């Protein structure tokens, strides 16, 4: 995908976000009008932004984490997520998580029928990887660690905590320890033996759904065991996309916060001068802008197509981005953008702390992004112990 195409996708996402997402966020309620979320996601699917596992779906090829991302890299998906997150990181998270789920089904032989049939069109799929009590490590991504869900003759056993998805998730692609290492299985949310507990009352990203899954001998028929040959369907590949997407949400969220802070600083007066004329405010805005710029640059490099993998990459011959760069992108982008958001909020003073100005929502989202999936200390350890060395 060349720069022109990438910019066109970015522009499409930006227009969609302004038209559909921004009104949803509004100024009322703690997190906006979440009742309208489903409609926005339907329109995102129609516009080809939301990925689909259905070859006839608009987003099958170029939706977020659509099939093209396997061959052409993460840049386009990351760009679209960033633009969506400028208006709302929560909605962008739904698109991100649903895309990750859809991609796990792309290319499966049964996709056109059993997997993406009537039961799933428009119904998001979520990916369950992180087993309870498992600390992510390089070796654990290669070979299932003790905490992973187990897939044996008796079905799926174990638990996955904090499984991210879009509202209305009806099925899960579960990474489980099988006879040949990591294997994948598709299970319905209503499957016998599967208990799902929604994680309510969270700090941010309220639009997305988060659930704990408990598997107690959940039967998996052969047709629901997904092919494991594809290198794009490994835990490494999934985690890489997950990390890059979260980094993109952090950057977009911070861009939006900075935009709001600048707007406020241009409009309001203090001490007889526009707020933006005060050096104290300029320091905050300048610091935020430089952090967002740095994070944005790092993200684009980490997601750029055609990056030659170092020894730390998984070298799958398809998406060439080394995994450790994705870890570093999530770590750095979330940290820098979190700081940028809190500085932007500070520009508004007391108003920034009030719900209606939406800066506090952005800060809650930013902090959630920083803590979620793989937390900073583990990311640091992963970067430090990258098998290929930090380069």
């Amino acid at each position, binding site marked *: 995908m060349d720069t022109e195409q990438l910019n066109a996708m970015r522009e499409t996402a930006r227009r969609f976000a302004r038209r559909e997402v921004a009104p949803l966020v509004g100024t009322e309620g703690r997190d906006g009008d979440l009742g309208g979320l489903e409609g926005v996601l339907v329109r995102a699917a129609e516009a080809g932004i939301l990925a689909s596992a259905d070859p006839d779906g608009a987003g099958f090829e170029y939706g977020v984490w659509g099939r093209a991302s396997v061959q052409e890299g993460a840049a386009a998906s990351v760009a679209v997520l960033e633009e969506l997150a400028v208006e709302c990181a929560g909605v962008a998270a739904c698109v991100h998580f649903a895309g990750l789920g859809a991609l796990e089904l792309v290319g499966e032989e049964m996709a056109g029928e059993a997997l993406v049939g009537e039961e799933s069109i428009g119904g998001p799929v979520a990916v369950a990887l992180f087993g309870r009590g498992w600390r992510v490590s390089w070796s654990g991504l290669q070979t299932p660690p003790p905490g992973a869900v187990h897939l044996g003759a008796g079905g799926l056993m174990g638990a996955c905590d904090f499984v991210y998805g879009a509202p209305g998730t009806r099925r899960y692609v579960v990474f489980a320890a099988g006879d040949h290492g990591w294997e994948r299985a598709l299970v319905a949310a209503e499957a016998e033996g599967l208990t799902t507990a929604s994680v309510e009352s969270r700090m941010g990203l309220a639009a997305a759904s988060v659930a704990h899954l408990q598997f107690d001998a959940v039967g998996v028929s052969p047709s629901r065991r997904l092919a494991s040959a594809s290198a794009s369907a490994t835990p490494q590949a999934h985690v890489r996309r997950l990390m890059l997407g979260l980094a993109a949400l952090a950057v977009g969220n911070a861009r939006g916060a900075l935009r709001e802070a600048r707007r406020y600083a241009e409009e309001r007066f*203090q001490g007889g001068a526009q707020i933006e004329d005060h050096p104290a405010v300029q320091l905050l805005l300048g610091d935020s802008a430089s952090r967002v710029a740095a994070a944005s640059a790092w993200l684009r490099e980490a997601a750029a197509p055609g990056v030659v993998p170092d020894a730390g990459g998984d070298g799958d011959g398809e998406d060439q981005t080394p995994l450790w760069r994705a870890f570093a992108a999530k770590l750095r982008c979330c940290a820098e953008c979190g700081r940028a958001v809190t500085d932007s*909020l500070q520009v508004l003073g007391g108003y920034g702390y009030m719900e209606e100005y939406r800066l506090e929502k952005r800060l809650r989202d930013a902090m959630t992004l920083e803590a979620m999936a793989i937390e900073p200390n583990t990311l640091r350890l992963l970067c430090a112990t990258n098998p290929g060395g930090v380069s």
Partner: protein
Amino acid sequence: MSDGIRPVGARERLGPLGRLLFDTEARPIWDHDTDTLSRPLRRLRHRYRDFAEVHLSCQGLAADRDPDFVDIPELFLRAAREGFGTELMPPPWGTLQITAVWRGLLLPSVLKAEELCAADGGLGLALLAHELGIAPLFVSGDLKAYFYWLGRIYREIRAGEPAMAAFAITEPGAGSDVEDTEGARSARLGCFYERVAGGFRISGRKVFITNGAVARWVTLFAAQKGCGVETWTCFLLDKSMAGFEVGRHERKMGQRAADASELILDEVFVPDDRVVGEVGAGWAISRNVLNFSRPVVGAMALGIARGAFEHAARFCNETRLANRPLSDYQDVQLTLADMLMKLSAMRATVWQSTRYRLPFGAAGAIAKVFCADTSWEVCRTAMTLLGDHGYVHSASVEKAARDARLTQIYEGTNQINRLAIFESQTGAEFGSDCAGCASCASCASDASGASGASGADCGSGGECGPASPVQYKIKTDRRGQSE
């Protein structure tokens, strides 16, 4: 590591005197710090903690979800029954322990703020804001305000009435302006008084007033109509006054248990005897109230961070990753140690700020800024330490982070407080030999800016007088460059 190498084991190889000099007892730093206090303060600190654990900890999360869950006046009365709502007057009027304030007026207040906010930032604020509300009655040095009005408020409290107070300076167009000298020169004020027979008529609005909805008494600052902050006067209002209403309640990110409300005044008649201090002394009173209150805000930030740390430490002990407690991992130990180190530094800063003969601008602002910024860091770290659990409401640390964020904003944003540090130390650390002249830029600026905030003729015939000059004078070297 063998037991002989560990400090406890190694200590046993020492003689009796050596063992006495080598403290290896595993005690929380809280206990070590408490030991450094006088006996009355030690007792007080324990009582504050016990009260907070019983009455605040268990209600914090619910009050955060639903601010109406806790009956704040009732909670206030429970605190008052413990003697925690009447600590600005000695017995028989109040519960001030002279022996406790011997080494610093503010030390009991900061101890209380830390303990209440360690249990819950929102409920802690609701209780502490009462003291901010009555602070002008004490800080003004007005004996009538202190003995008559404060005495009356305390009588009501002793009688079992929830006579809470609120402090009202912030206005819709003047938030930070009225907490900073430079901003105050040209603040766009929106709450004014007019002299009338027997008193004053006040109209205008105040916003973000903590306890604005539940307080019976309000110390409110208003300027003479058409004038600037130099005419600010402090009034003691009560909610029963005609024309005095509570407006909208703000929806805040954190510290949600304490309401932040708008106060609307429509020609409220205030009798002469409700003036606190002198007419026109409001600016001085408000500045000194901030000198007294900012260390307390620092202590609140410290308390919130301590609460987050305690939750995180407990989580790390109870949670197992790969069959080991999280606290067994060295990276987690490093992070927890870092948090504890920051808590110690915050406490040292706050306690130091109370040891001066009187609170002053730089001391209060340093405590407030350092603790607010550090508290935010500690809470963020606590969140990330918990990973995905960190953003779940029931884990409490995300709430602590939201609570901590407000301490960087109220009592003057941290940016305004940094300027206050500079202003307070002008003539000392940032001093100049210039005693005031017409030629250097800073003095000329002072002179030109001394004509009142609005610059307009207020019609007072010069009664309001010039604003107090502020002396920002940057020390310059011989080439005229600032150092």
